[in-house]
């Protein structure tokens, strides 16, 4: 009974907390919806992604015309193999990569002046003096920035749908990729809001947020590369002897991986990629690509990943598995050329991103706690 009551009280408290945070969202959204700049950005975004989609489609068409001209100069059209039945997957991949790229550019602009912009405007202290808690203010600002970013995603969605419609892709693919794009936007927005509370001036916090995004996109690759150079180790392996590849033999009869292992086991110097794969996992492109489901291709006629998304995911998963799972003839075992790794990498990457964003957010919250004991240099409460 009393447990029931505490439960109910907790529920009511949460409801009140959320209502307060929502009021902040309303305040932010009203301002955003009245600024012309936001609409201009949205329009530019729509046009640019539309252009990219059209260009991809046009180039695919041109390529197909060229292929036809070469393969059937007399004009007889032969059926194309099923995996390249339409431009869908290519358009989808190009547009997805481009949308993620632009999203990573837009999200800091929408979020990284949330707190210090208000401080400069003189409105932060007025809000802090009300019954709102620092957590409500920050959560409201984050939600508002995220909703604004989602509007951009919504504007890009039609082009992703075109990709799905034009080629045999499952609706699950687009659902998961939109979801993961939304999650990545949330991560970048919370980094932006967090930095904006920690840095004194909007310009500085926007630049810092861009730098953090650049670290995630490019820095993780560099760190992985350099880290791999340092993460040396040894394994024991013997030598693969490759089966002869007879062109007349149907491909399906070649048994994967196409080699056998023989000879004495010897120590081999290898790169222990599994030790630094977490760098790779933090990359937003890897997180999104790895989360998108794709079929196990090990039984396909050509056991290789199809398209960029799958390749990124396979490469990253192979790096995470390390040489023990991928080196040919490690411990005398042949390894399949198509690496079957069902354990996804993206939860690790997203988890690390959330730790980063959450840490910044917590630090930001402590900056907004009132009555304030310590003020950062050169700031005024009001």
């Amino acid at each position, binding site marked *: 009974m009393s447990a029931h009551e505490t439960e109910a009280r907790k529920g009511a408290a949460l409801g009140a907390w959320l209502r307060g945070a929502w009021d902040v969202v309303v305040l932010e959204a*009203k301002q955003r919806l009245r600024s012309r700049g936001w609409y201009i950005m949205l329009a530019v975004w729509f046009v640019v992604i539309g252009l990219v989609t059209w260009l991809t489609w046009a180039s695919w068409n041109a390529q197909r015309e060229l292929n036809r001209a070469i393969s059937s100069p007399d004009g007889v059209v032969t059926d194309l193999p099923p995996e390249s039945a339409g431009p869908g997957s290519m358009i989808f991949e190009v547009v997805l990569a481009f949308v993620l790229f632009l999203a990573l550019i837009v999200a800091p602009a929408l979020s990284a002046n949330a707190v210090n912009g208000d401080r400069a405007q003189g409105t932060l202290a007025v809000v802090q003096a*009300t019954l709102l808690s620092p957590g409500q203010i920050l959560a409201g600002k984050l939600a508002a920035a995220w909703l604004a970013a989602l509007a951009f995603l919504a504007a890009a969605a039609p082009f992703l749908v075109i990709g799905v419609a034009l080629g045999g892709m499952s609706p699950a693919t687009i659902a998961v990729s939109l979801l993961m794009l939304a999650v990545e936007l949330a991560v970048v927005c919370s980094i932006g809001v967090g930095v904006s509370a920690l840095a004194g001036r909007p310009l500085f916090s926007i630049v810092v947020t861009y730098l953090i995004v650049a670290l995630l996109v490019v820095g993780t690759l560099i760190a992985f590369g350099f880290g791999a150079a340092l993460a040396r180790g040894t394994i024991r392996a013997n030598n693969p002897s490759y089966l002869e590849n007879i062109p007349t033999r149907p491909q399906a009869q070649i048994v994967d991986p196409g080699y056998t292992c023989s000879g004495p086991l010897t120590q081999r110097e290898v790169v222990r990629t599994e030790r630094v794969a977490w760098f790779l996992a933090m990359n937003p492109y890897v997180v999104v690509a790895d989360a998108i489901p794709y079929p196990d291709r090990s039984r396909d006629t050509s056991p290789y990943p199809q398209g960029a998304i799958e390749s990124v995911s396979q490469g990253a998963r192979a790096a995470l598995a390390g040489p023990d799972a991928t080196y040919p003839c490690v411990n005398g075992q042949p390894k399949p050329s198509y690496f079957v790794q069902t354990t996804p990498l993206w939860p690790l990457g997203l988890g690390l991103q959330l730790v980063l964003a959450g840490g910044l957010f917590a630090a930001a919250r402590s900056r907004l706690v009132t009555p*304030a004991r310590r003020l950062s240099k050169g700031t005024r409460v009001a």
Partner: protein
Amino acid sequence: MSDQPVPADDDRDEGKDDGAGPAETGAAPERGVPQAGIEVRGVARSFGPVHAVVDMDFDAPPGQVTALVGPNGAGKTTLLLMLASLLAPDAGSLRIDGFDPLSDRAEVRRRVGWMPDTLGVWESLTAREILVQIGRFYRLPSSAAASRAAELLDLVHLGELADQPARVLSRGQQQRLSLARALIHRPTTLLLDEPAAGLDPASRVELRRLLRSLAAEGTTILVSSHVLSELDEVADSAVFVSAGRTVKHQRVDDSSRGRRYALYALDLGAARARLAELGVVFGEEQGRRPWLSMVLGTEDDAARLLRDLVSGGVPVTAFAPASGALEEAYLQMGVERR
């Protein structure tokens, strides 16, 4: 600070019951408040090497307007920020209606309306939207916030501009909006930082009238200002601060030290003769017109002297305190400027 519960001022709640409906209970003060008013004891606060507030000590009773007077950099704004529960004091204690901003932040915020010296305005929102939104932040239900906003917009004469974006408001209008914002949740305590700055004379008179009527309803009002003549009219007492310390707390009608009066007459010679006859010590002053100055103990003394002068045939054209009471006290204080 006494812990004895003092019954809350019932009139206040009844008096404010107009318009907002039943929903306003969220922000209304509770009954049984231990000690109404503001209490400041030995408060200090520094920012790194800058000691903004060194040692401040005073009470501001409910139902009165208390002026916080001091030169720039004396620590007035810092003190108000601490009372508004935005800054924590390094030492000393603060109480608002008996609540400590450090431990009872929500209670303090429910009671305090704070009007900052810097004008923060959401430029793209309208005056009405700003008030409603701030009302929501004080957990007023939407309908109550809307009716309260309408009421306050009329009170500060922004009714016609209510639905214009705040960026079109002039400085004085923004100042009035800021005052309305501070009043949205019917606070028991008002902290006003330079409220008269940027106001035209009519608005100043309005502000004065508004503060007096709020005080009459029992609100504790603390006003910081430089415009001493303004405060003379509205304040019941004044706390003088200098270099982070409270140096003096006096009632505006306090006349223990006597006041300097100015006497203008068509015939200064006759006035001199009559004053000498009455045995009043006076000084000669040179101004746009020459005048005579004298220090008088009480207002009764002044009234008696004027009667004697007039009945003695002196053609008096003006007889009044030479300067505002606060200005005189302020100048006597020999304050330090930073």
